[in-house]
């Protein structure tokens, strides 16, 4: 039954409807695969018993012909979504043992549609990172390895556990969140597809907050169509999130297969960044050619403020995080350290509970918001953000989507590329601008590097035009015909 772990969600739904297999068989196959892949450390908390129970309920509905839209499909749930009754840690020590008494809107939507969570997926602590090496619960390993090299590679981050689970075929899909690239970059590093929808598309209620003006939930899957199916489930207006936009959710999967004839694909010249792996630049050109062959028109565009996006992000995101993480004080939930008085308790609790990267970001955020610096740093960054947003709106007068690389390198080895924080931040140079502008962005695998690692390309669309993004992504997916499997899976097959 190992082919049950190598299907698309679309194919699995067909198989379940036709009674070729049951939801229990599908879920059991993925539980077995998850157990065999524990060395990847994809899950902080496994919820296999709950999954088996949910599978039985799913089978009962299939038997009665009352199946929910995505009934019985097993997924991984990033451990940033509050799940009622199930530990939610945000990969931090400070939330060890925290059991939310409520469900996030997005995970609730997915339960409503019959999706089954196998466990809470590992991530960089509080979603801060691009490698999943800052989790208090251990690193996540990428199921891909370089040809002839046994070193462990990072899956990317922050949603490393989610991406690795889908790539390793231990889950059919997964949820992630993307603040500066945390869905798109791990999707590229793990050879899968992921989308960060328009800001406001998915509710942030119940998602452990990092940067409130940037955070957005989104799906991972192994095909563009599967991502579309998952996004339709996740998205929707939520009155409990004041930044949630009241627009109907389209049937995203209907956009799959549409023609890209006459569509304009913009190639932004400022994304040709020094230090980008030349294989990725070559793939970018190849991707543009593939879309041209499919009937699209390639247009060179300019987004002049792109080179300031990283700096803008590293003012705004830490500023917002310093505010959002003030709630972790050891009083109402989470871990508490013993202190002589209240302030002592706060200071010790937070010093012991937060990891180094989180502390750095809180401190930089506190600094840029402090009296005397607020206007020079924080307000200046917000003004530059406006200019970055304007760049996108201007570009979209000349094209319908933008095509760019997703990451400047393929997945790197644990320890490589991580000498200092700023070097790590450069991983997000292609993904951050879209986050600043709030526009939707999707990454899909288009080719392999010389040493056998997946390389992704990114498509960015107009606000709330996820359908166009899916349409173009599908056309590129068809042309690229990426069928490579992670080496660790190939070895198993052998």
């Amino acid at each position, binding site marked *: 039954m190992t082919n049950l772990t190598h299907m698309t969600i679309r194919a699995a739904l067909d198989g379940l409807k036709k009674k070729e297999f049951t939801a229990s068989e599908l879920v059991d196959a993925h539980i077995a695969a998850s157990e065999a892949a524990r060395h990847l450390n994809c899950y902080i908390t496994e919820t296999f018993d709950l999954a088996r129970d949910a599978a039985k309920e799913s089978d009962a509905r299939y038997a009665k012909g009352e199946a929910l839209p995505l009934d019985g499909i097993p997924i991984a749930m990033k451990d940033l979504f509050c799940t009622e009754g199930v530990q939610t840690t945000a990969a931090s020590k400070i939330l060890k043992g925290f059991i939310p008494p409520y469900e996030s809107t997005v995970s609730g939507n997915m339960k409503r549609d019959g999706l089954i969570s196998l466990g809470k997926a590992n991530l960089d602590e509080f979603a801060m990172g691009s490698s999943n090496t800052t989790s208090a619960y251990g690193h996540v390993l990428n199921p891909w390895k370089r040809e002839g090299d046994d070193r462990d590679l990072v899956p990317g981050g922050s949603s490393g556990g989610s991406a690795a689970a889908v790539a390793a075929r231990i889950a059919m899909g997964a949820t992630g969140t993307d603040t500066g690239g945390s869905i798109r970059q791990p999707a590229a590093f793990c050879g899968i597809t992921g989308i960060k929808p328009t800001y406001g598309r998915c509710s942030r209620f119940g998602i452990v907050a990092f940067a409130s*003006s940037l955070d957005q939930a989104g799906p991972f899957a192994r095909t563009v169509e599967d991502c579309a199916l998952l996004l339709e489930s996740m998205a929707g207006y939520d009155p409990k999130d004041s930044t949630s936009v009241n627009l109907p959710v389209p049937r995203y999967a209907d956009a799959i297969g549409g023609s890209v004839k006459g569509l304009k694909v913009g190639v932004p010249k400022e994304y040709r960044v020094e230090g980008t792996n030349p294989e990725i630049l070559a793939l970018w050109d190849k991707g543009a050619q593939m879309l041209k062959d499919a009937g699209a028109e390639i247009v060179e565009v300019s987004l002049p403020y792109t080179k300031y996006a990283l700096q803008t992000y590293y003012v705004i995101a830490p500023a917002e995080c310093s505010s959002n993480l003030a709630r972790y004080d050891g009083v109402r939930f989470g871990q508490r350290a013993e*202190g002589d008085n209240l302030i002592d*308790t706060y200071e010790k609790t937070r010093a012991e509970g937060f990891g180094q990267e989180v502390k750095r970001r809180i401190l930089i955020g506190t600094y840029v918001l402090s009296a005397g610096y607020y206007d020079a*740093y924080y307000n200046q960054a*917000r*003004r530059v953000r406006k200019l970055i947003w304007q760049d996108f709106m201007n570009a979209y007068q000349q094209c319908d989507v933008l095509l760019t690389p997703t990451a400047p390198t393929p997945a790197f080895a644990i320890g490589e590329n991580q000498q200092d924080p700023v070097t790590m931040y450069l991983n997000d140079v292609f993904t951050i601008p879209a986050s600043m502008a709030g526009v939707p962005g999707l990454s899909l695998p288009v080719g392999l590097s010389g040493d056998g690692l997946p390389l992704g390309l990114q498509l960015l669309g107009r606000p709330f035009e996820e359908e166009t993004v899916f349409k173009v992504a599908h056309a590129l997916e068809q042309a690229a015909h990426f069928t490579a499997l992670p080496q660790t899976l190939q070895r198993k097959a052998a």
Partner: protein
Amino acid sequence: MSIDKDTVGKIARLARIRVTEEDKEKLSAELTNILTMIEELNAVDTTGVEPMTSVVQVKMHQRDDVVTDGGIPDKILANAPEKAAGFFVVPKVVE
């Protein structure tokens, strides 16, 4: 511009995070490194540009002023490190 050890100490106090002398040394270097990167924004002419608060252009929706929640003290206290008689318990605040 650099963030010296004293400044690290001040910021850490504001952020309620205990830092040792050794921490301050390391953080001073790391935060200065980040700040140097951020300061590249000073080169951008932003005259006449409004600071962006949100990418989403919606008028803040207000709900009806009715009680729709509450009466769940056990759930609220469930994750408290220390609780008593329906209250969160903390170290003494007032001497």
